[in-house]
């Protein structure tokens, strides 16, 4: 692993995004737009205070999943991955470069959504803004890491886009957003216990309800961080220097 190569990779991915104004606009604009819609769909402040933070964790997760899986698939099909595999670049250099670049984009994305939510939309939080930002960025990184991993199983862009519903929607259904997890059937709860998004949503619920950084929140943060690292390492294992 090399810090120079990781940083060069992150810089390169950011440069690619800089050339693509529309993607950049969508990355920042779409979650904000969805939050605004949500605020006026619920139209009662209490309801928005409860659901808003959950979706603040969910939107960056979903968007980063899609962007990261298509981005790395392009790298695989465009031949640049094979070229990089003939250079000193380590597999983790590449994935950490992606994590760093998309992590920065996620920060910008969350900063905008959060500013709009807390001012215009009047979102009321019990917890600190710091923990909210931490959990949202981790949610975005989780989406990115799972997207990188999923792209290894896609041969075409069509398949990669299909992975979004396949990987993401079951997690959304089971993460406690629709029905509280402890009220699900036992086997469903067991599944939801091993899905990383459940912990991101749980953490967001705690931030919206609890004033202090509780032990439960700390546990969630640790689990999400662990899942991000695990997905990155598994993603690295799917990159092959030699192919058939």
């Amino acid at each position: 692993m090399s810090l120079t190569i990781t940083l060069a990779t992150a810089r390169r991915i950011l440069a690619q995004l800089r050339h693509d104004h529309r993607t950049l606009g969508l990355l920042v604009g779409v979650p904000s737009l969805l939050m605004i819609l949500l605020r006026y769909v619920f139209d009662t402040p209490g309801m928005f205070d409860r659901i808003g933070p959950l979706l603040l964790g969910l939107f960056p997760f979903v968007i980063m999943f899609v962007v990261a899986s298509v981005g790395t698939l392009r790298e695989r099909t465009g031949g640049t991955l094979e070229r990089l595999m003939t250079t000193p670049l380590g597999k983790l250099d590449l994935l950490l470069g992606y994590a760093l670049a998309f992590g920065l984009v996620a920060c910008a994305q969350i900063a905008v959504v959060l500013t709009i939510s807390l001012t215009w939309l009047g979102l009321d939080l019990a917890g600190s803004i710091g923990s909210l930002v931490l959990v949202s960025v981790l949610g975005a990184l989780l989406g990115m890491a799972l997207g990188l991993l999923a792209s290894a199983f896609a041969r075409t862009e069509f398949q990669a886009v299909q992975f979004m519903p396949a990987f993401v929607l079951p997690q959304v259904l089971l993460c406690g957003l629709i029905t509280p997890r402890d009220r699900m059937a036992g086997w469903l709860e067991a599944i939801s216990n091993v899905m990383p998004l459940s912990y991101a949503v749980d953490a967001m619920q705690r931030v919206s309800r609890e004033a202090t950084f509780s032990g439960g929140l700390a546990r969630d943060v640790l689990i999400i961080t662990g899942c991000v690292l695990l997905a990155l390492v598994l993603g690295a294992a799917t990159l092959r220097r030699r192919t058939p």
Partner: protein
Amino acid sequence: MMKNEAALSVQDLRVVRGGREVLHGVTFEVPRSSVIGLLGPSGCGKTTLMRALVGVQIVASGTVTVLGEPAGSPGLRRRVGYSTQKPAVYTDLSVSENLRYFAAVLGAPRSDVARVTDEVGLGRHRDQVAATLSGGQLNRLNLAVALLGSPELLVLDEPTVGLDPVLRQELWELFHELAARGVTLVVSSHVMDEAGRTDRLLLMREGSILADGSPESLRARTGATDLEDAFLRVITETTASPS
């Protein structure tokens, strides 16, 4: 390091792709500081052989030794430059951004970006986004990436496709200049008129090497005046002889 050891040594290389053997026990050795032409029709296994040389191809059996080490060894990753037939660059980045990134990955000095840009004649396009380059310009950018750093072996898959004759001439001069500096080049082509510009020719067909020698010796052996003819005669010889 031994100065006189072979740049490339391939022994009985067999490769299976998609359940079909595409290289049938290829064997050859290449000395350093020369330009080797890999000639043959499309689909004869040139690209597979080149992928094996740079160590990205899973091989069924046989050995590939590059600059004294097994192909694909970590120690070779700075010493071997590779450009694929289909340009493998970031089309959403400019020429300079592409080269700066690959230079950083290879640990090549920053000044290399300007050097290789000039070597492939893309000076006027350095700030142009790669997606807007013409096919030939994109090929040259692809080649420029392979020239970054100071590779001792260059594996170039059809580097001169789609280039005008003047540019092609310039690139072949560059290849010979590099060889004079000690670089070994393996250049593939399916155009016979390029064969004459190499120091040594490997003629491939259907996954085997049919002939191996200098263009002169090939002409002399077959009694043909041009290489296209020579190639044809070699094919007739090998198919006529009982095997």
